């Protein structure tokens, strides 16, 4: 349908994952996109951050740290390579806090790296209802400092929070949640930074891209402008600062 007019590309492409994360300082907050599991997880950016060796990180994610022990969202029993997750920053001692909705599976054995760090007093774990967490992130990106939600009323989530009635129902006041960096995974980027996702790999990525000060995208393929259909852009290039292409045949899904 689109009869394109020519325009000059503005490239945000970075050559490798190490360079893309090189300016992240100790103490930074890092939003990690996807839902949990291999699909949508920016695995190469995470590994690069681990190799960077900075510490006192706050990690913000959804399902967090359970794939390495349960294979959640990875090929069952896969060992080539073994599943990795946000737990890597707790195993390495780099992270001091995680904000997430689902840090432990129903079974206790074996313990995840996050639970181990929490038990040892090495890490704070803040558990947020998933809908509240994604809405807090969305709010940060969309200029909404706070909003009301019915979720969590009458539970421990409400402790220390303001509540208020609207039309006879009680709601909690929840605040926007920003991050210093967002790592997002998409299938395609164009050189303007527009991202295209497939299937259930979207999840937390698109909102996180809007909410962080610096957004870095890990993609399977970088294309010229026009290589993503204007109707299929899942994250606007306006939100994306850096894009890095994965190597063909990467053993990580």
């Amino acid at each position, binding site marked *: 349908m689109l009869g394109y007019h020519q325009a000059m590309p503005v490239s945000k492409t970075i050559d490798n994952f190490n360079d893309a994360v090189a300016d992240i300082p100790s103490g930074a907050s890092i939003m990690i996109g996807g839902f949990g599991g291999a699909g949508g997880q920016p695995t190469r950016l995470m590994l690069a951050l681990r190799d960077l060796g900075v510490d006192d990180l706050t990690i913000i994610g959804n*399902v967090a740290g359970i794939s390495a022990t349960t294979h959640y*969202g*990875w090929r069952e029993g896969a060992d080539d390579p073994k599943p990795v997750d946000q737990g890597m920053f707790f195993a390495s001692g780099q992270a001091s806090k995680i904000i997430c909705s689902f840090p432990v599976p*129903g079974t206790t054995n074996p313990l995840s790296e996050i639970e181990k760090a929490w038990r040892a007093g090495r890490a704070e774990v803040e*558990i947020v209802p*998933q809908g509240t967490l994604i809405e807090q992130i969305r709010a940060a990106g969309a200029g909404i400092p706070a909003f009301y939600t019915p979720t969590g009323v009458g539970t421990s989530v409400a402790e220390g929070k303001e509540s208020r009635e609207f039309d006879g129902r009680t709601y909690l006041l929840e605040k926007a949640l920003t991050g210093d960096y967002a790592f997002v995974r998409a299938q395609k980027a164009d050189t303007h930074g527009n991202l295209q996702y497939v*299937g*259930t790999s979207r999840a937390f990525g*698109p909102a996180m891209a809007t909410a962080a000060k610096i957004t870095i995208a890990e993609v399977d393929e970088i294309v010229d402008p026009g290589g993503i259909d204007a109707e299929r852009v899942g994250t606007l290039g306006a939100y994306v600062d850096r894009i890095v292409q994965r190597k063909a045949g990467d053993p990580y899904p």
Partner: protein
Amino acid sequence: MTRDPAPRLSRTDIARRAALDLPDGGIVNLGIGIPALCSNLLPEGVELRYHAENGILGFSEMNTKFDGDPNIMDAGGNFPKLVPGMAFFDSVESFGLIRGGHIDVTVLGGLQVSDKGDLANWMIPKRGIGSIGGGMDLATNAKRVIVAMEHTTRDNKPKIVNQCSFPLTAPNCVDDIITDIAVIKVKTQGLFLMEAAQGWSPDDVQAITEPEFIVSDDFKPFQTA
């Protein structure tokens, strides 16, 4: 504690019974555990549009094995079969759908349910850490909440209680409880026993249920189809 008068149902049978309550054409979200088993146990001719929190609507069945694409997953880490008419979206949209009251029915697991319909299912206090996931949003906002769980703990303590001692997922949210021995409806007047498993009398069920329930005028044996 008396001995069971008859066998309790299997987890699959609980799920099969729960599946009977799912409305044809409805938008349904299944929690992890027993609820997830419903997906492949629908009665003949019933078509649902399953929703999963991670951003998928319209699947109706699970693949029995991982088929190689980690980008087609449900929230429980299962791999749905693709069907025509489905849609993918992000978590903002997914929880707008939930919180906005657009989910017809959710089936959730339970650790404890009170006679007021309070649900506790996200943390065992002695563990000290739990996982909320999408459960609070679903329990609070779905049009109908069915809890599918075993009737008692492993040491035969009631899970249907006067007051939940575990941290709540949401107060006053449960509509129906489907267990391995009974189907119980939560109404403002209290609990109503609707069905009991074969060989279980209302008294047998009451013996391992903490709050007193009312036996419904419509009481009947556990439905299987």
